[in-house]
């Protein structure tokens, strides 16, 4: 693998919040290295600290123990080398789609901005919606616009915090394909937090399984399949049941019989 930019190293990372005057440990001794250009899915039940982990990488939570390094430098706050797509699209309702995509661009000429916005709207398949307002978009379209906004700054790492969580099942599957296409095109590191096992396997080079209270990494599973992946293939299903097993959701006595 080429040594590109955007290597994320997390070493002995712990984080606790103060809740009702008592410390509550949300992350405990997290260790993971994500090489540039990788797609990593993080999965875990709610309360396992996966969103906190993402917020630390993003730079919104700065008070942690251990190391969180990007290209060897400690994360001390937000920066344009990281982009984020939240579960709610968070488009500013008073800006048009085009203006929203340009939201993170700073110090660019009007012409440059225009070019970048058009390019990214095209990438996410929203050309023609530049002057629409967010209230005129469907959930999936709004999330596409949010992805375009996150990518417009050319981040080295794109963080995805359950970005498809609020979409209906069909739109979600379609958007998973779109995410894969965008990832293959942009060749940047993407870290996806999700609670959808299938989504995690479909998109991830690696699936990181976290368990809660305190949040620890329970297992990291490599997904060796070629892309695009077949959700209904035997191998896919097998990894899926292996992961579900980790959450004690596997079928205890699979019993198949035929006459």
């Amino acid at each position: 693998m080429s040594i590109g930019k955007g290597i994320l190293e997390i070493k002995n990372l712990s984080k606790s919040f103060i809740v009702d005057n008592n410390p509550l440990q949300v992350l405990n001794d997290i260790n993971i290295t994500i090489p540039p250009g990788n797609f990593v899915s993080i999965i875990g039940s709610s309360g396992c600290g996966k969103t906190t982990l993402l917020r630390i990488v993003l730079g919104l939570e700065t008070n942690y123990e251990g190391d969180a390094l990007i290209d060897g430098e400690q994360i001390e706050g937000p920066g344009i080398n990281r982009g984020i797509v939240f579960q709610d699209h968070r488009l500013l309702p008073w800006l048009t789609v085009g203006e929203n995509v340009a939201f993170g661009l700073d110090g660019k000429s009007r012409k440059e901005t225009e070019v970048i916005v058009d390019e990214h709207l095209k990438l996410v398949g929203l050309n023609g919606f530049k002057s629409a307002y967010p209230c005129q978009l469907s959930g999936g379209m709004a999330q596409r616009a949010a992805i375009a906004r996150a990518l417009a700054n050319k981040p080295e790492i794109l963080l995805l915090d359950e970005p498809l969580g609020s979409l209906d099942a069909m739109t979600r599957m379609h958007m998973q394909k779109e995410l894969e296409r965008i990832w293959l095109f942009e060749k940047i590191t993407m870290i996806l937090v999700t609670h959808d096992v299938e989504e995690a396997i479909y998109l991830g080079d690696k699936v990181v399984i976290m368990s809660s209270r305190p949040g620890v990494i329970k297992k990291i599973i490599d997904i060796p399949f070629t892309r695009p992946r077949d959700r209904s293939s035997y191998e896919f299903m097998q990894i899926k049941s292996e992961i579900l097993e980790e959450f004690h959701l596997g079928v205890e006595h699979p019993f198949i019989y035929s006459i």
Partner: protein
Amino acid sequence: MSKSLLKRFEWKDKLLAFIVPLLVLVAWQSAVSLQLFSEMILVPPLTVMNTLVDLARTGDLTNNIISSLKRVLSGFLLGASTGFFLGLLMGLSSLLDRFVGPLIKACKQVPQFALMPLIILWFGIDEVSKVVFISIGAFFPMVFNTYQGVSGVPKKYRELARVFNYKSFRYLTKVILPGALPSIITGVRHSLGLSWMFVVGAELFGSESGVGYMMVWARQLFQIDIVMAGLFVIGIIGFTMNIILQIIEKRVLRWRVSFDGRMA
């Protein structure tokens, strides 16, 4: 439903608003015609109309309206801008909010008309005291609405601005102010409305021009038709100001209109 049919319904809706005023006018005229009240006390609507036309013809009315509007404008600009900046600062800094917020809320409870004698004592009987009085009326709705708008900008948008490294000026103009705008415009509307009410109040005290002055003077001469004409003028102007601001509001807050099916 076809579009033209929809339009006709809207048109009918607007007509509905005229029914009650018309009934009131009819009741008013019949009360006088049936001699339930003396014409001296309840002047019939047609007489009021004639008086209005007469006042307009002599130019008295226009002059009085202009001098009232001038006071409203200066008082509004002074009070609303002070209210805006203070509301903005309070919305941005919770420390300042805790310092002065309760004080301002307490002051709001004092009936502002009760301040008039003090204001006259401090600023004299002429223009300055009137402008100060109006500005007090304009100040309160502006400070509260601006504060509410600014502090009400959702945390998720503030966080977004942080993610994209937005600093002071850019943060203010791109995130905070647009987010607070609906509330700020409501503030402007109430502020201007109150200014217009306060000007009439201010002109009751030692004034030589203005719609309020015209009414006080007429009352002393027992020209009730002029008093009523004055009431009518005040109502119409206040109503017009509100409509103009609503049109501006619709324009500025285009993004708030929900999905209208244009792209379906």
